[in-house]
C-alpha cells in the first residue's frame, strides 16, 4: 500500500468537494465553459457520482462570441455523456448588438459575461455554483475559499471571507444567497495537463497547433473565426501555425505560435514556457487588480 500520488490526492479532494455540494445544496449547478479546466471538472464529476448520472445540470454562459468549435464540442459532449445542459445568453446585450470589436473587451465582458452570468443564476435560483477557477491563475484567486460565499447580489467580499479549515466546508446560507464552489482550487496548470494526459480526457482541438488565419489585434493574435471581424482587420489575416492556451471569446483570446500538435508536445512547450497562462487574455490586463474588481462585481 502506497501513499497516493499528488494527482490522485488532488482528484480525491475534488471529488470530495463535488459530493459535498450534491449532499448539502438543494439546487446546485456546474459552470461549463468548454475549456480544458471544464473538461477536467466534468470528468471528476462523472467519477464522483458513477454509476449515477450527474445530480446537477451544467450551465454554459454563451457570449455568442465563442469559437465555433467550442459550441460544436459542447454539443458533442452532451450527446456522449448525457448530462443536462442549460445555455444562457444576455438578450439585452443581443438587442444592443454588443461586439468586442466595437465596444471593447470591458463592455463586452461586463454585459455578455458578468451580467449574463448573474441573469442565468437568478433565473435558475441556484444555491451553489461550481466553477473551475484555480488559485494559481491570478493573485486575488490565491486567497479565495473553496466554498466562497456570495450575497444575494452575487458579490464577493474579500475582506470578510468565512474561515475555511481542514476539509470541513461551511455550506449554511439564507434564501437568495449562494456559494461559489471551486473543486480544482489547488490544481496548477501543469497538474491539469498531466491529468488530461493520464486520464485521456477529451479537449477541443483549438488547444493543438494547426495552421489558422490570424490577425494582430490589441497586442494579441486573434483568429479569424467568422464574418463579424471587421473587414479592415480581416484583410490583414495571414496563416500561421498557432494554438490556444485558454479558450474564451475569440476576439479576446490570444493565439500563440506553436508546433505542438500532441498532448506531450503541449506539456513540453508549457514546461519551457516563460509566460503565464492568462497573458493571452485581454480582460485581466485592463488595470492593476482587474480580476479582484471583476470578482467583487460577480465575475467568477
Amino acid at each position, binding site marked *: 500500500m502506497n*501513499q*497516493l*500520488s*499528488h*494527482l*490522485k*490526492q*488532488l*482528484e*480525491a*479532494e475534488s*471529488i*470530495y468537494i463535488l*459530493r459535498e455540494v*450534491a*449532499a448539502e445544496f438543494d439546487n446546485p449547478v456546474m459552470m461549463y465553459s468548454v475549456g480544458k479546466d471544464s473538461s477536467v471538472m466534468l*470528468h471528476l464529476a*462523472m*467519477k*464522483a*457520482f*458513477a*454509476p449515477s*448520472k450527474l445530480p446537477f445540470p451544467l450551465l454554459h454562459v454563451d457570449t455568442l462570441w465563442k469559437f465555433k468549435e467550442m459550441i460544436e464540442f459542447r454539443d458533442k459532449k452532451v450527446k*456522449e*455523456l448525457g448530462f443536462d445542459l442549460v445555455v444562457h445568453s444576455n438578450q439585452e446585450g443581443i438587442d444592443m448588438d454588443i461586439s468586442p470589436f466595437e465596444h471593447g473587451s470591458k463592455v463586452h465582458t461586463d454585459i455578455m459575461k458578468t451580467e449574463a452570468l448573474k441573469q442565468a443564476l437568478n433565473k435558475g435560483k441556484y444555491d451553489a455554483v461550481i466553477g473551475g477557477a484555480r*488559485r*494559481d491563475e491570478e*493573485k*486575488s484567486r*490565491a*486567497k479565495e475559499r473553496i466554498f466562497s460565499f456570495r450575497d444575494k447580489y452575487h458579490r464577493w467580499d*474579500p*475582506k470578510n*471571507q468565512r*474561515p*475555511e*479549515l*481542514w*476539509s*470541513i466546508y*461551511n455550506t*449554511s*446560507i439564507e434564501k437568495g444567497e449562494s456559494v461559489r464552489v471551486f473543486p480544482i*482550487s*489547488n490544481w*496548477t496548470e*501543469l*497538474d491539469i495537463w*498531466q491529468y488530461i494526459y493520464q*486520464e*485521456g480526457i477529451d479537449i477541443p482541438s483549438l488547444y493543438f497547433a494547426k495552421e489558422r488565419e490570424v490577425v494582430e489585434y490589441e497586442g494579441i493574435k486573434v483568429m479569424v473565426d467568422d464574418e463579424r471581424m471587421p473587414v479592415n482587420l480581416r484583410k490583414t489575416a495571414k496563416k500561421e501555425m498557432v494554438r490556444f492556451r485558454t479558450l474564451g471569446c475569440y476576439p479576446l483570446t490570444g493565439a500563440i505560435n506553436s508546433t505542438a500538435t500532441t498532448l*506531450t508536445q503541449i506539456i513540453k512547450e508549457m514546461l519551457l*514556457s*516563460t*509566460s*503565464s497562462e492568462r497573458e493571452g487574455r485581454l480582460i485581466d490586463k485592463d488595470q*492593476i*487588480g482587474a480580476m*479582484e474588481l471583476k470578482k467583487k462585481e460577480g465575475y467568477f
Partner: protein
Amino acid sequence: MDITNYLKEHEDKDMLRFLTCGSVDDGKSTLIGRLLYDAKMILDDQLAAVESESKKYGTTGEKIDMALFVDGLQSEREQGITIDVAYRFFTTENRKFIIADTPGHEQYTRNMVTGASTADVAIILIDARKGILSQTRRHSYIVSLLGIEHIIVAINKMDLVDYNQEVFGKISQDYVQLANELKIKNTYYIPLSALDGDNVVDRSENMPWFSEKPLLSLLDTMDISKKIKEEKFRFPVQYVNRPNLDFRGFCGTIAAGSVKVGDKITVLPSQKSTRVKSIINSGDITERNCKSLSKEAFVPMAITITTEDEVDISRGDMIVHSDALPSLSNSLDVMLVWMDESEMDTEKNYDIKRATSVISGIFEAINYKVDINTYEKDEVKSLALNDISSCRLLLTHPIAFDTYRQNRETGSFIVVDRITNNTVGAGMIMGLTQKYEDTDMELSREYTNEEKALNQYVRDNFPEWNCRAI
C-alpha cells in the same frame, strides 16, 4: 528533454503542504517569493508585473520586492501587509508543494489557525537579530495545537549578524527548549537570508559552517509519510448514491486506514453491523468503464461502498471496522479557537460540523483560556475573537469520534452560528468529559421505543434543555 519519461516520473510525485509563520518584518513573504523565484516558478510576465509594482508599492529600493509575488489583494499591497491566508504552489522533481501564507500578528491568529489546519509542515521564521520573541512562542503554540509534527525553524536575516554561527547556535538551543515544552516531535534548523537567497534553494557560500540541507532540499526530501496499515479504518458517509432500486452506494473519503471487500463493518452511531460487498474507487472510473470495482482502498481515496445487508445508513454516519470501534459520546472536552467578532455565548446553540455530520450543541463550560504567548491558563467567563480555550461541548446527539491527536479528520470540527451562518469557531476533540465518564453506566439501561421517541422529540425541539441522547 524526454517528455514521456518526464511525465512518467511526475505521475508518482507526492504532495507536501506547508505553512509559513512570521510577522511582516521577519521577511516571510520575501522568503516565499524567493522560493518561487529561485525554483523558477515566476514567469516573465509575472516578473514584469512585479517590477512595475515594485516601483509603486515596493519596500526594497533597487532590488525586486520578492514579497510582491505573493501579496495578493490590492488593499493589502497598498498597506504592505498580508491579511489573509493565500495559497501558493510550486513543484520540484519529487514533490508538489502547497504553501499556506498566513499573517503573523496576534490579531490574525484565526488566519494562522486556518492555514495550519491543512499543513504537514510549518516553517517558523525567526529574525537572527532578535531571537525567540513572544510571537515565536505564539506561532509555535498554534502549529503544535493544530497537530503539525514537523517544524522547520528558519533563522532569517543572517546577513545582518555577519553570518555568525554562534548566533545561530544560541537561537537553535533556545528553540529546542520551547519544542520540548510543546512536545513538538520533529524540528529542523536552518540559518538563511531570504533577501539574498542564502540557504533557501542554494547552499550559502557565506555560511560554510552549515553542512545540512538548504530549505528547499529539506522540504523536498523530508519524510512525512503516515503508517496507513496501523491506522483504524474511519469512513464518514458523505453522500448516498441511489440511481435505481438495484444499487445503493455509500460515498465518502476514507479518513484513516484501509478497507477490503468482505470486511466486517459497523455503522455509527446506530451500531448496526454488516459486511462490505463491493468497493468502487472513484479514481479508477473512466468514461468507458464506469463500473470499475476494487478489492481494497485506503486513505485518502474517494470511494463508494455497497453493503451485504440492507442497513439504514445516511450522510453523517461513520462506518468503521467492527473490531476497531471509536468512542461514542455527546459530551466532549475540546480545544476551541474562537474566530468571530461577537463573543462566544455559553448558553447559545451552535451548529457543530464534524466530518460530514452537522449536530447542534452548546459550549456549556469554559475550562480555561490559554495565553498563547506565555502558555498560562486563565479562568475566563467568555471568549472573544482569536481566543484559544479548553471547553466542554455538549451535543444534542452522540457522535463517533477519535481525538484530534489520533485523527485530524474525525477529531476536528467547525462551529457555525445559526443566525449569521458564519464560521465562528474551530475545534479539536481532546476526549470524553469527566462528567460523561462518571455517568456512562446509566446509558446501558434498555429503553422502549416510546421512550426513545420521546427522548428524540425533546432533543429535536428543546435543544436548550441539553437533554442527553439515549
